[in-house]
């Protein structure tokens, strides 16, 4: 993606969704199933966005934003995945696989960038400690506004850089892709569903009866598929 007019709105979306992950308002508009769909909608193909968003959502089920832990940043990542798939998409058999891989890479880097921002916030908090300890409203609000603004910029810059960097790689990989389209999709969603299945199991297994409920649910899901 080298077209600035196309990149700018996606970077802005990545900024807003990156901000939502932790800083504001944590309404989970940054979850892949929403964010990838929103990005692809900007490019005129919400359906493909939902497809890649649902696949990424399965990965995201495993990584929950617990406090100080380091976790992937899905907001910007889903914008990358959704837009790459919307642009190159089903026309190429490897479209979904490469879009998901780009999004996972972005999520990984995004998690690292959030840690760096938290360290920067800590440096500023340390420098302004005396002013905070004297009850300065200006400093308390200033630290908050700086953190929010820096996170917004972080998400936007990350989205723009990854999209700009991945576009030529994406084009090259798709140009030389030799695997069958359905097999390619099956591999990526199979891996995603394995991660999701394990994540759901880990999340619920301690609740009384949850194991049996999950197995019953699987039986119902497979029966519904059989009669579809």
């Amino acid at each position, binding site marked *: 993606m080298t077209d600035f007019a196309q990149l700018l709105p996606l970077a802005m979306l990545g900024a807003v969704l990156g901000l939502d992950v932790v800083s504001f308002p944590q309404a989970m508009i940054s979850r892949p199933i929403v964010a990838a769909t929103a990005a692809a909608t900007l490019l005129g193909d919400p359906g493909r966005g939902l497809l890649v968003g649902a696949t990424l959502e399965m990965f995201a089920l495993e990584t929950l934003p617990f406090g100080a832990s380091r976790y992937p940043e899905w907001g910007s990542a889903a914008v990358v995945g959704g837009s790459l798939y919307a642009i190159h998409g089903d026309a190429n058999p490897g479209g979904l696989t490469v879009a998901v891989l780009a999004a996972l890479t972005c999520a990984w880097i995004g998690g690292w960038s959030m840690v760096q921002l938290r360290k920067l916030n800590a440096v500023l908090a340390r420098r302004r400690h005396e002013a905070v300890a004297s009850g300065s409203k200006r400093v308390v609000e200033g630290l908050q506004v700086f953190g929010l603004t820096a996170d917004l910029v972080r998400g936007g810059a990350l989205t723009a850089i990854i999209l700009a960097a991945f576009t030529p790689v994406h084009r090259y990989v798709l140009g030389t*892709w030799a695997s069958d389209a359905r097999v390619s999709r099956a591999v990526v969603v199979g891996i995603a569903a394995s991660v999701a299945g394990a994540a759901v199991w880990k999340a619920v297994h301690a609740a009384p009866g949850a194991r049996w409920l999950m197995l019953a649910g699987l039986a119902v899901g497979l029966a519904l598929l059989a009669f579809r």
Partner: protein
Amino acid sequence: MTTQVEIPVRTRLAMFVRLLAIQGAWNYETLLGNGVGFCVEPALRLLPGGQDGPAYRAALARQSQYFNAHPYMAAVAVGALARAELQAEDAAKIERFRTALCGPLGSVGDRLVWATWLPACSIVALAAFGFGVGTAGVMLVFLGIYNAGHLALRAWGLSAGLDHGMRVASALGGPVLRRGPTHIAQFAALIGGIALPLALDQVIGPGRALFGIVLGAVALGGFVLARLHGRAEGWKIAVVLLVLFVLYSVLR
């Protein structure tokens, strides 16, 4: 000495909106501390001497120190600490209360929201996708359900804190917070079982033979990843597998 100060609706609203940005300056030294000060600040303007008076400055300084809790449940702390400051409770008592709140508000919130509510809403959205609901429908289902719980929890927390002040611990013993996570986990287990095969089928498309192979591989992969619990992250293993598959598809 305690005095009952009426908190205007406008102040409550300002605190609620600020709560949405409580993690804006999150860092590894004071964690949520600056955010708590930022959220309590509108209420502190009601202290004797007003904004920038000595009571205001002392209270803001106290509330902006280290604090850790779940971001949604921090609303309880913000409300309770604002009430304690407005009731002119002893400073040392407020600081002890503030420290005591961290643990329970962290563990209750993590268990209720991150460990159950968010995965449950995510699974419901995947089920909607699996059932063939359209793009707008899936997004609305997820955002509608998740945020009904999210915003209600923040609003309840702020209100409970402001109403109960330093006696807010009694509100944390409510049935939703105690038994909610178990029921949500049971619901998520059932819906998760239904959603995964349907979502798989939506992505792969028609063709029973390939679907059967994938389902078997998913069952095996899921079992192995569940057994690796805590020792490896599935999504990182996935990145390696996807890189290998891309290399195979490009180089063969």
